[in-house]
């Protein structure tokens, strides 16, 4: 009984996450004229296109900058994921292992920054990046965010699970701090590193306000911001086009996630011990 309830709850939760994507997918195969016609009657046509068509996808491919903008998102995702994982690894290593005064305080302060929304710091951030001459520049987009408290938290937990004896063995075997990180730590936190990378890769798809502010060149813009630009409240919007573009935009994130997720479950730190 309770098992059936649990299953039902899980299915409901999964449906809540999948439903918007399913609607997006089905809408992307519609004609614009059909988009709202069946909204009120609540039949199968409310959810599924009467005559599925790929026209909207063809129109996406005709957009001159879309491929470039999608590449921007993917490239930024790759860069952010890699850079953030590296900075998180170094910070987490220091916070988990290096003996220093006030380590807990630094960690707490770092976690505190999670409570400050980006929107709040956006105006001063803009001026700082402008002073650096990096507005409308790829690195200006990336640089302010290559540090992630969540990544540090995740990796710090993982590093704390690695037996200290492994560090100590490495130190006695002739390793310094760098060598300990490479030999004793990194091979044992691979799962957490991949999780951290994947998380920050996908996070880039959520970026909106910052690229909208700091990137004014169309060919440098991210796909999701450009798609939002297709919605024009003053004129009639090609919604099928918007939906098809959105589907194409999430494909790289989806594919990457599907490819790497098997590393997430097999992430137990194995030691030479029992």
């Amino acid at each position, binding site marked *: 009984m309770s098992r059936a309830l649990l299953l039902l709850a899980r299915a409901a939760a999964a449906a809540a996450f999948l439903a918007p994507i399913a609607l997006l997918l089905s809408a992307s195969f519609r004609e614009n004229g059909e988009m709202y016609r069946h909204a009120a009657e609540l039949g199968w046509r409310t959810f599924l296109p009467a005559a599925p068509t790929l026209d909207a996808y063809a129109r996406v491919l005709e957009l001159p900058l879309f491929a470039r903008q999608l590449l921007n998102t993917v490239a930024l995702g790759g860069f952010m994921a890699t850079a953030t994982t590296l900075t998180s690894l170094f910070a987490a290593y220091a916070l988990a292992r290096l003996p220093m005064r006030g380590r807990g305080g630094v960690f707490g302060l770092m976690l505190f920054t999670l409570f400050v929304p980006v929107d709040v710091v956006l105006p001063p951030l803009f001026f700082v990046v402008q002073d650096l001459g990096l507005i409308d520049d790829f690195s200006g987009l990336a640089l302010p965010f290559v540090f992630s408290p969540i990544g540090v938290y995740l990796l710090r937990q993982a590093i704390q699970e690695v037996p200290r*004896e*492994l560090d100590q063995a490495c*130190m006695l075997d002739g390793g310094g701090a760098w060598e300990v990180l490479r030999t004793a730590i990194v091979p044992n936190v691979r799962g957490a590193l991949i999780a951290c990378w994947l998380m920050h890769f996908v996070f880039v798809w959520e970026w909106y306000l910052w690229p909208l502010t700091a990137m004014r060149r169309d060919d440098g813009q991210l796909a999701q911001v450009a798609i939002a630009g297709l919605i024009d409240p003053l004129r009639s919007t090609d919604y099928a086009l918007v939906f098809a573009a959105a589907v194409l935009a999430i494909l790289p994130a989806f594919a990457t996630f599907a490819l790497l997720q098997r590393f997430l479950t097999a992430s137990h730190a194995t*030691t030479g011990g*029992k």
Partner: protein
Amino acid sequence: MSDLILRGVSRSYAPGAPALAPFDLAVRSGELIVLVGPSGCGKSTLLKLIAGLEPADAGRIALGGRDITRAEPRDRRIAMVFQNYALYPHLSVAENLAYPLRRARVSRAEIAAKVSATAAQLRLEPYLDRRPAQLSGGQKQRVAMGRAMIREPDLFLLDEPLSNLDAALRAHVRAEIAELQRRLGVTMLYVTHDQVEAQTLADRVVVLRDGAVQQVGPPREVHARPANLFVASFLAVVPPNVAPGRIVDGTLDLGAMQVALDDLPDEMAAALAGRDEVYVAIRPEALSPAGPADPAVLCARARRREFVGRTQQVQLEARRLPDLPGRLERLTGRRDHETMLWIADDRSREDALRLACRPEELMLFDLDGAALGPHGGGLV
């Protein structure tokens, strides 16, 4: 030359609570020292101080004439075998063995030669390509030993190396370690909480309790002449029977046993002079059925018998003198002093027992637990 000298080395984690009280020890080159004590006695802390994994608060450490008190771990020429072996899980056995040499920038050819020599010595050749996760406990233990041996350190530190092995394997690996140590002639510091390992392996044992050294000496000597009640109780397969005793009118009275001071050896009688309360310890194996002429006879009733092969452990009920509650427990670190034990052969069946102990086998301690008379003292 690789003798280790510790002078006043100490360490505390919280002010006023020393994990290790100022500690002196001189280890001769080629000697096997076993540090033994219950968990939390500071033995592992001491190893970490020597290895440089933790800083000493005070004191000096010298190895082979070099002062290494402030040296980095990698510069100390010390190898350590950890309780959980601490093998690198992503490296094969061969790579694990080679790792310290690679860090020391030894040439590739020399590394290969040394790895195969070490593997041969430890019977690891069939496993060189395996990962640690594919090895049994005993094999991992040998790899850990090999990784320590391969760079020919001046000092080996072993931190409870057998505690992750099952009992059957333990005696075997213990003998292997002893054999290896003799053959290589290396200096070794071995930490354990197991008094059997301490007695079987050590050239000298160091008994620790609460961060303080209790006694240092060859195991047989420490066993025969424990410096205090704690050592007497800890370094024994079956702990001795301890009872409070009173000296009245030239007789040592334990309640269940009365011994005339005239029947004790002169040194023991002299050590008792001027005292009226002591603790007396009697090893269970020192008791035997009494004859009519025996001067020290324990009268007791057998309460329970446990047969082990051809011997039996007889739990005895005997009259005891009153004692300050809790003091004996504090001094020995053990409980259950009410019941005494006798190791007998399996023929004994009587319930009312008269057991004799040779007077010189009585061990005498003062009320602070320190040894009195010839069996202790002067050895620390």
